[in-house]
């Protein structure tokens, strides 16, 4: 079922730039991995996946900490900063 994997489309979904040389390599490696994991299709599953050990945990809806407490620490880690904001490139560009 995974004979042809469109690596370029996948890379775009994953927000990952891939060179042509890497695409060629991945075009053999990724289907190889998928062929290996496909063996699970043979397993007949009888257990109803209740996963009672996994449950949503929520904290009370109040202030977990004082506002501004971590602002400087977190902004210091950012690659680009403008005042108290992380600076990013424009998301929507105007057509010229």
């Amino acid at each position, binding site marked *: 079922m995974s004979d042809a994997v469109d690596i370029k489309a996948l890379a775009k979904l994953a927000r*990952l730039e891939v060179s042509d040389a890497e695409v060629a390599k991945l075009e053999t490696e990724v289907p*190889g*991995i*998928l062929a290996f*994991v496909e063996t*699970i299709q043979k*397993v007949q599953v009888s257990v109803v996946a209740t996963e009672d050990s996994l449950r949503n945990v929520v904290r009370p809806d109040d202030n977990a900490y004082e506002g501004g407490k971590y602002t400087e620490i977190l902004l210091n880690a950012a*690659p680009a900063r403008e005042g108290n904001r992380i600076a990013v*490139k424009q998301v929507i560009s105007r057509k010229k």
Partner: protein
Amino acid sequence: MDLSKLTIAEARRALDAKEFSSVELTREYLSAIKEKNADIHAYLETWEESALAEANAADDRIAKGSIASLTGIPLAMKDNILIEGRIASAASKMLENYHATYDSTVTVKLKEAGTVFLGRTNMDEFAMGSSTENSAYGPTKNPVDTSRVPGGSSGGSAAAVAGDMAVAALGSDTGGSIRQPASLTGLVGMKPTYGAVSRFGLIAMGSSLDQIGPLTKTVADAKILFEAIRGHDANDSTSLPNREETVRKPKVIGVPRAFFNSGVEKDVLDQFEKKLALLQTAGYELRDIELPTAPYGLAVYYIVMPAEVSTNLGRLDGIRYGHSVQAEQLYDVYAKSRATGFGAETRRRVLVGTFVLSAGYADAYYRKAKAVRAEIRSEFVRSFESGIDAIVTPTTPSPAFTFGSKSDPVAMYAEDVFSVPVNLAGVPAISVPGGTVERDGKKLPIGFQIIAPHRGEETLFTIGEDVEKANG
């Protein structure tokens, strides 16, 4: 001071008896690191100044009699466990200059105990690999035979302890990343029950699988370190509530022969059988059991884990922290930062994860894998409910391999065949030294894996110590 014989328990005794101070002990380790690390490359960075200051503070505590189990004990930390202000890079270029903005919960616990942090250890990038060859900073060598890998991903932590450059270390285990390097370097390595140790401040790989755990020279040390880091944490939503466990003394050991009989090298299997016979002599009853779905564990793992990896690593996009490549378009900032920040294996797993979660494929891959995972978990639970106290297997199919010998990704993945079902089921397991086998004239250690029911760590320690005694 003979560091090769030193354990946490022995160091504790000697520190309390004032035979040496924590400063003296720390200096010994720092000089051992200076001497050996250039060759072994266990540490990515050492923290000489702060380690000596911590040792000094620990000596004050010891003088005052305010002693915890790890006061003044020098440990190594895997490079994916956060210590505030310190670089935690997960051996990736992506986080090369990332300084942790907070302490992980295990760090808080160790600081409260008065532990000495010697440095951060090398690993496979983002804990993805079984050899440390995926580190962005070059591989770690196995101190037992430097032509061979120390295992991974916690290979640096294993080499630090096996190379007498730390008395013990913390690692993390998503599919075998503590137990496999322990096996390959002759140490004890333990993966706790999922939720027993907080994951808060552990750089996430596969969040439903990750656990922090100890790499030590003895089972007793693993227990000391585990007791020091375990416990409920409100900052980890999957953390288990604190509860006293009363575990009965283990008597019956399940042996899933059909699971491991094929694919294990013959002398590794022979060594394993020898240990089994010794346990029988020590009074255990051996019972053949079936785990029919366990052989599919590896395939399930290589769907669930990359899915979680691609999700967890989505946050690393060159915007908030970490490596960032500036570009004209926002998309290109993401795509270029990730392309140049992530190594080859990380990129591969991100793509596989994206594939198995993508529309049209998620049912056949991710959801099917989740269903098979539930089946595997249920098989373990049913075995334990049927009167089996523990299950044993070899930790790995073979001893340490040479650098570059597993360049095919799927061949490397096979290292984890006996360890991943444990993470999928969420049960605890320990690898203890299980004898040696000879390769190219060298005696190489192999591990003996013991698996217990959820929260059955005490069973691991009991049987682990009996294997140790049998080793003599």
